[in-house]
């Protein structure tokens, strides 16, 4: 894993290289180099098995993090290629020509995060939702609880407890709620 990273780090000007163990590493690459790097890894480094394409919403940095996870069946190691893209009007080059299943991931990400992949087949089609009019459902600022309460009919009498408070009341009923705090909470 390390030698591969040593080889590609100068080539693609990788910024944030983190090696988890011998078999897993994550690198951050610039947006315009990302697809190029994925192609390079597939063709020259033997990462021929495409595992997963995912997205993480870092709302505090106003960034969306795309992840291309590739697997090398020979060396049995996994590399995650991360790309940070803008959260407003997110858009990314399509990679559907590299592997046949990628357009599915792109279709899902388009629906879940609103990321546009120009040129990807059937990108505008619904994936899991139908007639969805709200904002993309996987973004952090979409509040699913509020949406569910407003849209569906919550059954009256169903109560929800904060587990920590509830357990404290059950286990130590005589102590006032604020008396003792777990040291992890501070």
């Amino acid at each position: 894993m390390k030698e591969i990273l040593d080889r590609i780090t100068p080539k693609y000007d990788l910024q944030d290289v983190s090696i988890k163990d011998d078999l897993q590493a994550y690198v951050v690459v610039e947006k315009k180099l990302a697809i190029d790097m994925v192609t390079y890894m597939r063709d020259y480094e033997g990462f021929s098995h495409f595992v997963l394409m995912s997205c993480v919403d870092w709302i505090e940095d106003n960034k969306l993090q795309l992840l291309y996870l590739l697997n090398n069946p020979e060396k049995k190691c996994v590399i995650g290629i991360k790309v940070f893209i803008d959260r407003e009007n997110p858009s990314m080059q399509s990679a559907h020509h590299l592997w046949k299943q990628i357009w599915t991931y792109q279709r899902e990400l388009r629906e879940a995060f609103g990321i546009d992949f120009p040129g990807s087949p059937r990108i505008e089609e619904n994936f899991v939702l139908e007639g969805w009019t709200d904002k993309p459902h996987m973004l952090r600022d979409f509040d699913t609880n509020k949406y569910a309460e407003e849209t569906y009919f919550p059954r009256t009498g169903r109560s929800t407890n904060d587990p920590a408070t509830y357990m404290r009341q059950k286990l130590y009923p005589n102590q006032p709620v604020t008396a003792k705090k777990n040291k992890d909470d501070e």
Partner: protein
Amino acid sequence: MSELDINDKVKEMLEKSAENAGSKNSEKTFVHPEDEEREVIAPDGSIIKVNPIYDYFSGKKPTEEKPSNGVVEKFLNWARSESIWVLGFGTGCGSIEIPPLMTPRFDAFRFGIQMRPTPRQSNAFIISGYLSVKTLKRVIRSYEQMPSPKYVLALGSCTINGGMYYDSYSTINRLDKYLPVDVYIAGCMPRPEALLAGFMKLKELIKEGKGEKANEYARNFDEYKANQKKIIKDWNMPDYNW
């Protein structure tokens, strides 16, 4: 219903759906191009007008069908309770317990329970767990296709109050707001024994003459439809060119 009424109704519906869509995202209207009104040339050369949205989504109110009186109805109810044909539509993860129900260990065939593959021939609907909005649309459509009298068994806590998915944006919380439910079977997920107990309860209800939820659905059709329309915004049905 005359043709004029139909057209008015469709227009109203289209406007409504356009409004619904337009309120948040003006580009997305829920009429796909293939669902627009069009003319079709029949094999003999004549021209038929087709309006897919109306043809596929029946907006017609179901009629209430009164039970026949006295001994006849009692006798028929006995026959209905002993021959429950379940629609084979696994709507959620509870459907993994349907194969055990139909196989040597539990063998629901002993009690006259059989699976039927088409809604036209079945009279019981097992809602096996959580219902996403997308499935609910199909469930309603299948339910409306079933001939009366029909019964609904709701499995799992997800259909009662949302269960584990109470805060999910995709699954409904209470099934009885959208469809009349005869028997709830609690659990996550209910065991086959619980399912059998549910069927026994349903049999009792039918024998007592209480299995008239289909008529209730017809009576409160507007209310149920309003609830359904609140969450199902895309009423387009898949296009058959048959």
